[in-house]
């Protein structure tokens, strides 16, 4: 589903964020990506989202070499991937419902379909009663769950999360991780970048450990 083939990324500043990195994530697999800050976790996710381009090597997502995707294809590629951010990236000038509906509007879902999917996604994250609220009025954990609902509303095949529990207490973090596990069981490929080692070591999923842009453990096909 996601394949990195000897991928290197050097930023304009000269910093090497990834060095000859190869990894493979199977369809419907849940994989954790860990490492100290600056190890290359975010860069790896950005390459999958085509927010950055690799300097060398090949990134293949859903059978497509990302180097061949250009212009308008980038937006379409992003429509097939759900993303959860540490800082939620919610829009505070609109309701929770409208935030979750945004990717569905962009992907061109029918009006009725959008209502159904938004409510289904909010139901999954336990926020159905907050659809009319402004996200600003919600707690950090609730905002993160709105972000997750937005990421899964269009039922993407791939779900990426960048430090989704970064600002949450352990109980809330465990709740969020349980949600991701549920999505993985429902057929979504989930890749979560996190440094919450205590939490993920209990979950018995493959852990990819990055150090200085290179993979230390867990990269190969299982």
């Amino acid at each position, binding site marked *: 589903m996601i394949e990195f083939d000897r991928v290197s990324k050097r930023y304009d500043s000269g910093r090497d964020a990834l060095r000859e990195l190869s990894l493979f994530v199977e369809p419907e697999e849940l994989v954790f990506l860990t490492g100290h800050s600056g190890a290359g976790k975010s860069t790896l996710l950005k390459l999958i989202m085509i927010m950055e381009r690799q300097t060398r090597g090949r990134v293949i997502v859903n059978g497509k070499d990302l180097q061949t995707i250009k212009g308008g*294809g980038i937006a*379409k590629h992003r*429509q097939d991937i759900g993303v959860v951010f540490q800082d939620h*990236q919610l829009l505070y000038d609109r309701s929770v419902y409208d935030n979750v509906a945004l990717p569905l*509007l*962009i992907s*061109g879902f029918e009006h009725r379909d959008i209502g159904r999917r938004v409510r289904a996604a909010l139901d999954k994250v336990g926020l159905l009663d907050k659809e009319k609220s402004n996200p600003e009025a919600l707690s950090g954990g609730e905002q993160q769950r709105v972000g997750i609902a937005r990421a899964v509303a269009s*039922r993407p095949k791939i779900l990426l999360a960048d430090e989704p529990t970064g600002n949450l207490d352990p109980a809330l973090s465990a709740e969020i991780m349980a949600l991701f596990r549920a999505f993985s*069981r*429902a057929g979504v490929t989930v890749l979560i970048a996190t440094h919450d080692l205590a939490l993920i070591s209990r979950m018995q999923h493959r852990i990819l450990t990055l150090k200085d842009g290179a993979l230390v453990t867990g990269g190969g096909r299982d």
Partner: protein
Amino acid sequence: MTKPGRAASSSSDKLPIAKRFRTWCGHHRLARHDTFERLGRHWVSTLLTALVMGVVLSLPAALSMGVLTLDAALAEVDRGDSITVMTHDSVSLEQASALSEELAPLSLVESVSIISSDQALDELTQWLGLSPEVLASLGNPLPHSISLTLSSTETAALQALTEQLANNPLVADVLLDMEWLSRLQSIALFGERLMWAFVAIALLACLLIIGNTIRLAVESRRKEILVTKLVGGSNAYVMRPFLYTGFAYGAAGGLVALLITYSVKCWLGGPIDALANSYQAPYFALRFPPSLAFALLAIAIVLGMVGAWVSARRQLKLIEPR
């Protein structure tokens, strides 16, 4: 739980054309609704921008109204071009009539009329407001004359005709009073160039006004644009509301300009009509034809959209998720 990954794919490159068209229409509906809702919410700044655009555009519009008026008046005057042939004092009315019959078939001549010296004296007396007796006591110093109405004012042909007439032994003088016409034409040309200069300045000013307004609008929605791009919004998708904003500003500015220009027409109409009447020239009236109104509105809308497109494109390039 359903199998989300398999239940649906949002990948629009696999969608049939009809569905893609529906999606496209839906995006436009959404952008329109979003734009007008936003403009309505900030109606004061919307109104101010429209007013500024309208005022800027009304200047060349009012000038072009003047130029159209002058051109139309010139066309009327042109049609009335004529040559007056004065005969020598010794020429009798019969000789003058014979000459006029000779001139009638010439290609450049549309019609011929003869004015006898008595007729001319009558007209002069009336024009001066004197009693006929006073002038009659002085004797009639006026010759017979022939007035030729011309079918064309083409310079070379006109010159040839004038020479031909001047060489005729019966003819004392040929009056070709075209100088005032050429002066008027020069004024019209000056007016037209002035109008084009103002058109150019107004176009540039409108582009700058819209460009700057849209630049600020893009900047104020930076986060929304970033998030939209992150969840798969294309550049066209993010650009659309700004194009509609440009359209709205253009249309509103055009309407304001129409209103101002029409008010100017109404305001100046009275004095100009009075002037035209005093010259018995009813064709000299301010003209604001529907074509000018339509062009003004269309130009304003195009300006709004072009300004928005250039500015939004430039700004959006700077807002890429990193």
